[in-house]
């Protein structure tokens, strides 16, 4: 009998809201938005956790410039704090080496992380999801019943093709959907907004492509001053975050 599922509820019970930042497509800026959202909330005085569930390509630690930090052991593992955020990632256990995991391994890792991580009391836990609707997404839906989804796309028809499928499955499973953010826009277009509204999901707004963003990666103080953060903050006001 699998014992770990019995303890997950207890580990998460003192977390008020759990927001999974997801997309059907990779490379659309999920990690940036998840990290920026966590920073935004932490700077507004909330107790925030960030769980990077992208097990093949974790990148939240790069965006946050989180180096030389490790979890501590106390009745489980306690996430280290980086820029006011309790942060947990597979990278603490992989030392930046390649991670050749198969599907069943992914589920086992997620179960283990959820069972042994002692988050304590949080206002928000932000989950940086990997792309797609594979094991990680299904496991978050299965084990974190009260998770809400914030979906990210780019203006590309290619991205929206995959994102549309994620939206459909989330709607079918009746998961709370905060809405869709259109990231990296370069010109005026209503294509994504129309597509999102067509499936009766809230379109939250655009984040304009920002050429200066790369220089702010790994430097949260600079990141919070970028136009990306400015656009994101305006968007988050629509959903009271």
């Amino acid at each position: 009998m699998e014992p770990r599922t019995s303890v997950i509820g207890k580990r998460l019970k003192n977390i008020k809201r759990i927001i999974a930042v997801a997309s059907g497509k990779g490379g659309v800026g999920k990690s940036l938005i998840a990290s920026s959202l966590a920073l935004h909330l932490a700077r507004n005085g909330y107790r925030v956790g960030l769980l990077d569930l992208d097990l093949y390509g974790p990148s939240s630690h790069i965006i946050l410039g989180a180096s030389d930090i490790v979890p501590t052991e106390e009745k489980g593992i306690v996430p280290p704090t980086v820029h006011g955020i309790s942060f947990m990632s597979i990278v603490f256990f992989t030392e930046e080496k390649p991670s050749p995991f198969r599907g069943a391994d992914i589920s086992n890792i997620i179960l283990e992380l959820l069972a042994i991580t002692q988050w304590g009391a949080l206002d928000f836990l932000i989950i940086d999801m990997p792309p797609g609707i594979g094991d990680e997404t299904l496991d978050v839906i299965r084990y974190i019943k009260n998770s809400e989804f914030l979906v990210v796309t780019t203006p590309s028809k290619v991205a929206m093709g995959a994102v549309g499928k994620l939206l459909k499955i989330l709607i079918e499973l009746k998961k709370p959907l905060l809405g869709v953010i259109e990231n990296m826009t370069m010109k005026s277009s209503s294509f994504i907004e129309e597509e999102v509204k067509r499936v009766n999901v809230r379109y939250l707004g655009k984040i304009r492509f920002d050429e200066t963003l790369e220089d702010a990666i790994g430097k949260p103080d600079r990141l919070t001053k970028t136009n990306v953060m400015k656009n994101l903050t305006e968007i988050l006001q629509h959903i009271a975050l």
Partner: protein
Amino acid sequence: MHEWALAESIVLAAVEAAQKEKLTKITEIVVRIGELQQIEKEIFLFALHELAQSQPIKIKNNAFQLKTEKSTLQCKTCGQSWKFSDMKKKLKSTESESIHFIPEVVFVHARCPHCGSPDFEITKGRGVVLSSIKGVR
């Protein structure tokens, strides 16, 4: 004391199962401990006993039976099998500790000792499993 978190999952799962079966007392809880997770048995047993005292169902003293399961790792490329104990001494202590926390990172830190492939699987002895419980109604 990461063992505490795993012990807690065992005790909660046992209580959940006992409640489903309408047991009033649990008399035996058999736990299988996979070699890969490298559990400190004494700490784990201490945590189990501590946690057993604060449950809604009475758990008999000495109810816990721990059974160690040797690991079997099998390569998907060359088909050879081996045990974690065969390769443990080649791992750095930090790598071994990471496998203790998340057994699947063995795929990150180790390779098939026969052909060097990272594509192998854990067929036995991964981690902590609740094997069986006994009790009275």
